[in-house]
C-alpha cells in the first residue's frame, strides 16, 4: 500500500472531523431529550411526551423555538465579548475530540465509487495522532475556562459574574485532580498517546484501568463531574442562588451554544473515561470482541460511553448540591492529595515489579 500524499491525508482527516462533530451535535440534541425523560422517570413524572411519538420530536421543537427567539444583548453588556463567548465555549469544547480515539482501524470497503487510493485502506478512527495526546487534552480543557469567564463577565450582571467566578475557580481546582488521575494510566502505558493507553488495556476486563487503577478511576469520576459542572457540583449554575449562573443573560441560539458546549464537554468526559479506564473499544472478555466475523469494537465503545452518560444523569436525579466551601475543601484537601498518593503508589509498584 502506497503512502498517502498530504491532500489525501487532509481529506481523510477532514472527513473524520466532520463526521465526529456532526455526530456530537446530533447526540447533543438527543441527549437533552433523554436527560429530561430519564430525570422525569426518576422523579415519578412523565417528562416531555407530547411532541411526536413518545415526545421524540421535542429536541426539534426546542431547536426551532431557539432559532426564532429574539436576539437580545443587554444594554450594559460588552457587546463583542457577549457575542464571542458562546463561540469560544463551543470551539474549545469541540477541540478536545481531535485526539480521542473511538475505535480501532476500520478497513474501507472496495466500492467502485471510492477513489483508488481509498479502497481497502485501514483508517484509524481518530482525527489526529498526537505524540502528546494527553497533554493536548489538558491544554484544551484549561482553555475551556475562557468561554465561561467571558460569558459571565461581558453580561455585566452580578449573578453572571459570580457564576463565572465560581465556575472558573471550580474548573481550575478540579482540573488538577483530573490531570493527576490520568498519570497512573500513563505510567502503565509508558506513553502520552491515548491510543497506546487503550491498547495497553486489551485482553479482558482484568486489564482495564478501572480495575487495576480503581482509585484513579474514582478520582477521575469526581473530578470530571465537577469539571463539567454537573450536579452535585453544579455550583456555577445553582439556580436557587444565582438565577442561572454565567448564562443568566443569554437567550436564543447563543444560549443554545453555551448549553451545547456543556453537553459536548459531558460527552467528551465520558468518552475519555471509556478510553482511559474502561478499555476503550475492547470487550470485557476477549471472546465477545467480535460476532459472526464482525468486530464489535464501536458497539462496546458506545455502550460504555452511554453507561457513563446515564451515570451523570442518574447522579443529577439523585444527589443534592454541595455547598461552595465544601466543594473547594473536597477538591483541594481530599482529591488532590489522594491523586498524588496514588501516583506515588503506582510508580512504586511499577518500579518494584520491573526491578
Amino acid at each position: 500500500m502506497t503512502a498517502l500524499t498530504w491532500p489525501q491525508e487532509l481529506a481523510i482527516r477532514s472527513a473524520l472531523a466532520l463526521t465526529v462533530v456532526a455526530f456530537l451535535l446530533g447526540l447533543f440534541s438527543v441527549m437533552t431529550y433523554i436527560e429530561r425523560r430519564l430525570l422525569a422517570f426518576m422523579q415519578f413524572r412523565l417528562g416531555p411526551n407530547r411532541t411526536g411519538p413518545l415526545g421524540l420530536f421535542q429536541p426539534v421543537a426546542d431547536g426551532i423555538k431557539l432559532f426564532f427567539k429574539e436576539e437580545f444583548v443587554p444594554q450594559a453588556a460588552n457587546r463583542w465579548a457577549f457575542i464571542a463567548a458562546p463561540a469560544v465555549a463551543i470551539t474549545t469544547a469541540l477541540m478536545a475530540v481531535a485526539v480521542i480515539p473511538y475505535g480501532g482501524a476500520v478497513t474501507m470497503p472496495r466500492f467502485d465509487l471510492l477513489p483508488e487510493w481509498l479502497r481497502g485502506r485501514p483508517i484509524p478512527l481518530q482525527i489526529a495522532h498526537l505524540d502528546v495526546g494527553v497533554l493536548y487534552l489538558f491544554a484544551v480543557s484549561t482553555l475551556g475556562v475562557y468561554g465561561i469567564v467571558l460569558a459571565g463577565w461581558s453580561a455585566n450582571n452580578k449573578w453572571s459574574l459570580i457564576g463565572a467566578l465560581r465556575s472558573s475557580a471550580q474548573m481550575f481546582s478540579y482540573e488538577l485532580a483530573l490531570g493527576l488521575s490520568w498519570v497512573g494510566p500513563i505510567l502503565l502505558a509508558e506513553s502520552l498517546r491515548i491510543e497506546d493507553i487503550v491498547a495497553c488495556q486489551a485482553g479482558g476486563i482484568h486489564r482495564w484501568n478501572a480495575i487495576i487503577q480503581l482509585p484513579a478511576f474514582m478520582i477521575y469520576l469526581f473530578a470530571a463531574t465537577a469539571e463539567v459542572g454537573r450536579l452535585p457540583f453544579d455550583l456555577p449554575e445553582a439556580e436557587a442562588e444565582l438565577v442561572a449562573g454565567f448564562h443568566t443573560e443569554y437567550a436564543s441560539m447563543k444560549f443554545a451554544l453555551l448549553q451545547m458546549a456543556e453537553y459536548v464537554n459531558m460527552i467528551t468526559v465520558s468518552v475519555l473515561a471509556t478510553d482511559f479506564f474502561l478499555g476503550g473499544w475492547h470487550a470485557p472478555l476477549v471472546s465477545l470482541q467480535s460476532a459472526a466475523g464482525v468486530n464489535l469494537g464501536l458497539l462496546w465503545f458506545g455502550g460504555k460511553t452511554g453507561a457513563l452518560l446515564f451515570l451523570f444523569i442518574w447522579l443529577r436525579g439523585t444527589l443534592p448540591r454541595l455547598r461552595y466551601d465544601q466543594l473547594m475543601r473536597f477538591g483541594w484537601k481530599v482529591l488532590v492529595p489522594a491523586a498524588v498518593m496514588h501516583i506515588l503508589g503506582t510508580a512504586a509498584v511499577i518500579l518494584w515489579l520491573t526491578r
Partner: protein
Amino acid sequence: MAETILFYALAITAFSAAFAVVLQKSALGSAFALIVVLCSLSAIYGLLGSPILATLQIVIYAGAVMVLFLFVIMLLDVRREKGGGGPRSFVPLALLFAGLLVLQVGAVLVGSELVPQSAPFDGSAKAFARRLFSQDYVYVFEATSVLIVAALAGALALARRRR
C-alpha cells in the same frame, strides 16, 4: 511550501496581535490579544516539530497565567485608559531602546533565509523528558521548581491574615 505559508500566516498573526496588546486601550482587550500571541507562538512551536513545547505553552501561559490575569482585570474592574498613558519624559528613552531592538533584530534578519528551517531533531515527548532529566538540565530544572515553591510560600506569608 505549505509549512512556509503557515509559518508566515502565524507569524503575521502573532505580530499584529502583539501590536494590539500594546496599542489596545482596554486592559481586557490587551489580555485577549496576548492570548492570541501565545496561541500563535504555540502553533509555531508545533510547526517546528515540537508538539510537547506547543502544548506546554498553551497549558502554562494561555491556560494558567492568562486566566489569572483575566481574573485580576475583571475583579479590579480596570477602566479604559484615559489620555496618553504614562509621563512624556520616558519617550526619548523608549525610542532609544526601541531603535536598539530594531537594529539588533534587523542584524539577525539580514543574514537569514526567507524560508525558515530548523535543524532536524527528535521532538517527541520521550526525547524531551530525557534531555530535561539528564545531567544537562536536571539541576536547573529542580532549582527552578524550588524557586517557584519559595515564591509561592512567600506570597502566602504576605497574604496571610495576621492573628
